[in-house]
């Protein structure tokens, strides 16, 4: 899923400093699963902001709404023109949300309430880790099922570098050296030869470097199935 962290309350209060009436829009997709932008988080953020503004003697009226997803126009359209009744709208979805909202409701200002961080999963309750860099050309199978593009700090295709120590990455003591895991897995499986030789130079054309990407599925575009 797409993982995000809520922005600090200070920053959010600053965004709507001049507003009297705002809307906070959550999303039932990824950000609900990673407990950052679903119904509960919308409620907590709204209450927190109201407390802050009451304390400042400048109360803020906040409406709350949670969409099925903010990355589909059919759901975004459910908000309707009433979004224009507010001074501003905070989106608690990933970075896609505020953009889909902005594209549909051109008169309104939409602010991101979260910092979208990565594609990952929960490794324990409350802890999410990056697993995919969305590079557009998946080669996980070449590395024992572990992606060095997303998980090696230097995206090495021929690791581990000289900074690998006891399975820990040189960049951060909390980060495992994924190359240590790849090598050990391959050695245990007797597949060391998979790691020898020079891998093809990676084409970054399919990654963000090639410009904004688009995925088209003709059969769906035509509406036949």
């Amino acid at each position, binding site marked *: 899923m797409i993982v995000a962290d809520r922005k600090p309350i200070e920053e959010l209060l600053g965004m709507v400093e001049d507003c009297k009436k705002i809307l906070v829009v959550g999303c039932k997709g990824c950000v609900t699963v990673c407990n950052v932008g679903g119904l509960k988080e919308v409620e907590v953020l709204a209450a927190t902001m109201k407390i802050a503004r009451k304390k400042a003697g400048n109360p803020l009226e906040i409406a709350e709404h949670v969409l099925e997803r903010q990355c589909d126009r059919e759901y975004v359209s459910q908000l309707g023109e009433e979004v224009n009744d507010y001074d501003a709208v905070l989106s608690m979805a990933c970075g896609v949300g505020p953009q889909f909202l902005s594209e549909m409701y051109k008169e309104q200002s939409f602010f991101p309430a979260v910092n979208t961080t990565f594609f990952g999963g929960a490794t324990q309750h409350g802890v999410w880790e990056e697993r995919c860099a969305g590079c557009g050309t998946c080669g996980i199978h070449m590395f024992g099922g572990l992606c060095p593009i997303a998980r090696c700090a230097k995206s090495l295709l*021929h690791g581990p570098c*000289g900074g690998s120590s006891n399975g820990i990455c040189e*960049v951060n003591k909390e980060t495992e050296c994924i190359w240590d895991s790849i090598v050990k897995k391959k050695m245990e499986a007797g597949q060391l030869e998979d790691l020898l030789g020079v891998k093809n130079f990676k084409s970054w054309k399919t990654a963000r470097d090639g410009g904004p990407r688009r995925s088209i599925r003709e059969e769906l575009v035509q509406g036949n199935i």
Partner: protein
Amino acid sequence: MSELKSGSNLEKVLAAGHFAFTGECGPPKGANVEHLVEKFQHLKGNVDCVNMTDNQTAVVRMSSMAGSALMVNEGLEPNFQMVCRDRNRLAMMSDILGAYALGVRNMLCLSGDHQTFGNHPEAKNVHCIDSMQLIAMVKKMRDEGKFLNDEDIDVPPKMFIGAACNPFADPYEFRPYRLANKIEAGADFIQTQCIFNMEKFRDFMSKVVDMGLHEKCYILAGVTPMKNAGMANFMKKFVPGMDIPDELIKRLKGVEKKDQAEEGIKFALEQVEEFKEMEGVAGVHMMAIEWEHKVPEIAERAGVLPRPVID
């Protein structure tokens, strides 16, 4: 290894079977050419070539290409270092051509310390290709006369290709294979990470020799003389991939503070003596960090002077 690939001095020295002795010099944190040229004088005539570091530890300095070119002007042979952290493949190929045009004949292909260690941790890291591929790319440019996209290069850069090897990083069992991979990719010579744990290095080299890697490539053992026990402690704690045995720290602490530098040099000299005899070791890479003025003395006492001059 009979036919010369680059004709660099380092290559000639190694090809003639001499025990190589290379040095290192960091470019200034600024454009202070005078100071840099002064540092060169300590190295001149005492080493076969000098590594010009590329934003080492991810701290911004004068570019390694400019530093290398200044070195060429001073009649010293550079080993132009290039890291994958700061340039994409376009910039790399263009800098390789540029360096060659300025008279550079050796280069060292590295991944580069991660930018979080440096003075601009907010920087974007590139890693368009990795060090293994950089080696292969320089080889392709040199031997095939082609860019990565297979277009022809009019005058190919004839570089003597170097790579690094850290025998002390984990997983240890894999290190000889990674070295083999670098040699297969095209490395002509290897400069190892600073060696302090001699026991581990002996074991590593015996594996390397068993695999016959020393016959395919020149391996230069990395040596850094310790200035004092504090430096040893610091490196042990903060420099990634360093293996500094407690006995060495104990040995340095065992003498008075004013004598620690001499003790550090003595240890380095003992290492050089052992490397001269060690099977598979073709030379020493002396990294006297910010201690260039000590190199003449170290070279003299190590018995590696005069350096061979080969036409």
